[in-house]
């Protein structure tokens, strides 16, 4: 518990937001943070497509079709989400607080302006990182069993 608190405080300090007066605040968020960690664990494992969606959104906000396009690109055309599935995923991710609808609209294109944009939330980023770590652990176990060579690059 204390360690977490220090961790949060030091992270805050690194990012330049730390000031003594926020210590109490940091301590209060400790509890939430702990809960969130539990939340993060509860949300794992992610489905591969969910993982991909979050990954795509790390590059910035996208509208629905933008997400589909990026996923096609990233998967070399293998993952082609249909609209129904896409929005089922978006709804689920939003329901779990991993995504949020963006209030920002792009003004460059009238057509695009009408559309909803989605962005990844802080929780979403944490879940993405946790999922990546989980997968890395899995891969390491496989490597340890010499089934595949460890990538040493």
């Amino acid at each position, binding site marked *: 518990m204390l360690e977490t608190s220090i961790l949060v405080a030091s992270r805050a300090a690194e990012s330049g937001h730390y000031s003594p007066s926020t210590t109490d605040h940091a301590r209060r968020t400790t509890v939430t943070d702990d809960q969130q960690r539990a939340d993060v664990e509860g949300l794992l494992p992610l489905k591969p497509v969910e993982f991909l969606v979050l990954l795509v959104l790390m590059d910035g906000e996208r*509208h*629905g*079709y933008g997400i*589909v396009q990026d996923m096609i690109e990233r998967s070399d055309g293998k993952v082609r989400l*249909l*609209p*129904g*599935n*896409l*929005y*089922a995923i*978006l*709804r689920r991710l939003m*329901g779990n607080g991993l995504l949020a609808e963006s209030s920002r609209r792009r003004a460059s294109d009238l057509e695009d302006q009408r*559309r*909803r944009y989605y962005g990844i939330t802080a929780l979403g980023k944490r879940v993405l990182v946790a999922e990546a770590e989980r997968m890395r652990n899995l891969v390491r176990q496989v490597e340890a069993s010499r089934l595949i060579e460890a990538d040493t690059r």
Partner: protein
Amino acid sequence: MSYGDSPRNRAGPEAVYRLLLHCYPADVRRQFGDDMLDVFRDMCEVERQRRGWVGVLSFSLRAYTEVPMKAAEAWTQARGGVPGRRGVVESVAGDVRFALRTLRKRPVFTTVAVLTLGLGIGAVTAMFSVVDAVLIKGLEYRDHARLVTVWQVVPGWRDVVNLTDYWDKGWLSYEQYRMWVENGDRAMEIAIHDGGGMTLTGLGEPERLAVGEASASLLRVLGAQPVLGRWFLPEEEGTEANASRPVVVLSHEFWQRKFGGDPDMIGGTLTSSERSYTIVGVLPRGFRLRMLTAKDDVGRRDVWVPLEADQGYHWEAIGRLAPSVSIEQAQAVARSVLLPQGSASDRSISLVPRKESEILGFGGPLVLLLGATGLLMVIACANVATLSLGEVLRRRHEMATRVALGASGLRLMRQLLTESVVLGILGSAVGVVLAVVGTRMLVALAPPIPRLDGVVVDHRVLAFAALLGVLAGLLFGTVLPMMSLQGAVGDALRSGTRGNVMRREAFTRSLSVTEIALTVVILVAGGLLTRSLVLLMNVNPGFDSDNLVVIHALPPNGRYSSQVEEMAFYGEVLDQIRAIPGVSSATAANGVPFVDGTSSYQVRVLGGEGDLLDAGVSALGYRVGPGYFGVTGVPIIAGRGISESNGPTGPLVAVVSASMARRCWPRESPIGARFQFLGNAITVIGVAGDVRHEMLDREPVPTFYVPAAQSAYGDANFVARTGVDARHVIPLIREAVWSVDQDVAIVEAGSLASFIARSANYERYRTLLMTVFGVTAALLAAAGVLGVTARAVAQRTREMGIRMALGARGRRLVGSTVLESLTSALAGTALGLLGAFWASRLLSRFLFGVAPSDPITYGAVGTLVIAVCLGASYVPARQIARVDPVRVMRVE
């Protein structure tokens, strides 16, 4: 009022997706629906670029099937369902997913079944959307249930040659309208209107405009508002007002076409050959008002002008009943006001609900065609049922294994049902795409039918298609599992048993008999209509229509008011036309059969007896130029025709038709006899052959021809006989007319043969459609027979192999297999002919010269169908000859 408020005519795939989105809970749809549609549209576009329409089709089908499953998940969540635990909805979704997977594993079956169903659903849906627009949907007027058509019933018109059809649909006079306005009750408000024309000048080539003339009350009665400016005021009605300060209201389409939708045109001027009108308003887009007595009038008018007062009975009246006034009450009031004491006693007034009078004459053929597509749909279903049954047979090991592993019969049944419904929905999707294409073709090929331009594949039509698909799915999804599950386990355990197989064979055969029978019904209908059309088109109109060109022209009103001027104008134009290379002779007349009608007159035979003297004879009167009979090829049977010598100063003469001669002078020669026409005594100088006037199926009526030089032409129809293709000459004749007077409007121009063909437009349309449906049905039935035989052959390979090993000749085995399918072909054809015999009564009023039980048609269709069935069974049966007995024996 919602004229032309049609939903955006989006491409079919997107419309279907929009409809499917209704599967989602409302809040989800509200939140994401538009976005999903956006994504769908974008991906569709990408697929279009990537793989063309194949890509679009396969993408849309995948996207469609995904929606119900995802929607089911959304519902589960909306009901607070725990993810992971399978609720009813989710388990159905699971079934659907499984069904899609199994269907995907059998691409040939799935493709054939979906396409067959799609064809059936597409045909029904396309035809339904036409019936929906023309017959079912309301009229485009606000609260149209209160609108009535006011007819004057004139029993005497039954004896008037060109009014016979209208005796109970007679028009009102302007005076009657004024009587209603002045003394009329509050029971109903009446408006009157008529169609006319004006020649637009000063905006390019003189153009003939379709003009509506109407009373100031019209828009109020119809419940419409101009989109710009105003409609007429009561004080603008009548001759004086029209002469002193004429006003005009433009239709939306005309305003867009001629003025590019410029709102500043209000207050501007529109110049016709007669007068300059002030533009006071623009009507809403799509505003239509038909003259009901003109069948091919779909109600389009370029401009509307206030009516001018006259004496004639030619105004069609439309009334709006006051609230809580019944049609009977209004009719009683109308009779007392419009037909005051002392007026012609046999007349009456009848009020008919507007919608009823609007669809009169269009309902029968369209409903009949819808019925034919319904049969087509049943054939498609039977085909798919046969296919599915084959699949079930093929899968009986799978089924048996699943039952053996503990799946309940109910569970399997549900699975099969889901598969069928999914198949049905896929079929509807294909059907909708076909319907969108089909509807466009139906509209493009159609003769003038009111409200046909309002045909859209909208949500009602889509719902109809989806319903059809699901029903079709349920039909062969419940029947089949029941048939198949009975013996699924037993078959697997006792693989030699043939009992169930036999029963299934019988069922399959009965399906194929049904298909063949229904095909025969549609083909007989198509055959009867075709024969009737051919007979109709072979009717001799009474003149030689080959290489005859007619130009219906209208000189500006009042320009050739004196007879001398008029004759000079006509003479000059005819000289110009005769000088055109390729024209061998030319003449003119006030009307030409099938192009431009003429009036009927009550003529009295001078020196006649009895009723011929008193009441006279109703006859059509043409005013014709010299050489009319020579040019048109109407034969002169006795006496002589009309020539240059019958000038204005000579004695008044006429040529009468054979039927008029028979009617007026039954016992003596008509040559030299006299009759009274418009107060003048006219001497008959010749008898001409009978001519049909508007429709080929109408018997010729008494007709007489007087020299135009002795009366006046009125309307101008120039008739030219050409030695070359009419199409090359028509532009030259137009030029010739305009070289004499460039303000002459040309109403119509074409070969007389094309005008005659036009008179049978409706007949041709329904014949074409019925034939197309018949051929489609035959193809489906042939595919069905082919499938059934192919399976029978495949199942009996072993038997055939053994028989061949025992010495049977391959060719004889092929023959016996083909003969087996001959049994169902014969049974189906016999049943079908009986059905057609019964159903053809519905067709009888659309037939001409053919009895509904025409043996030639029945014989030809029967032979054709049997031949097609034999052909279709021969193709797979040939495989038998190639069976290698050695290989079969080795397997044994």
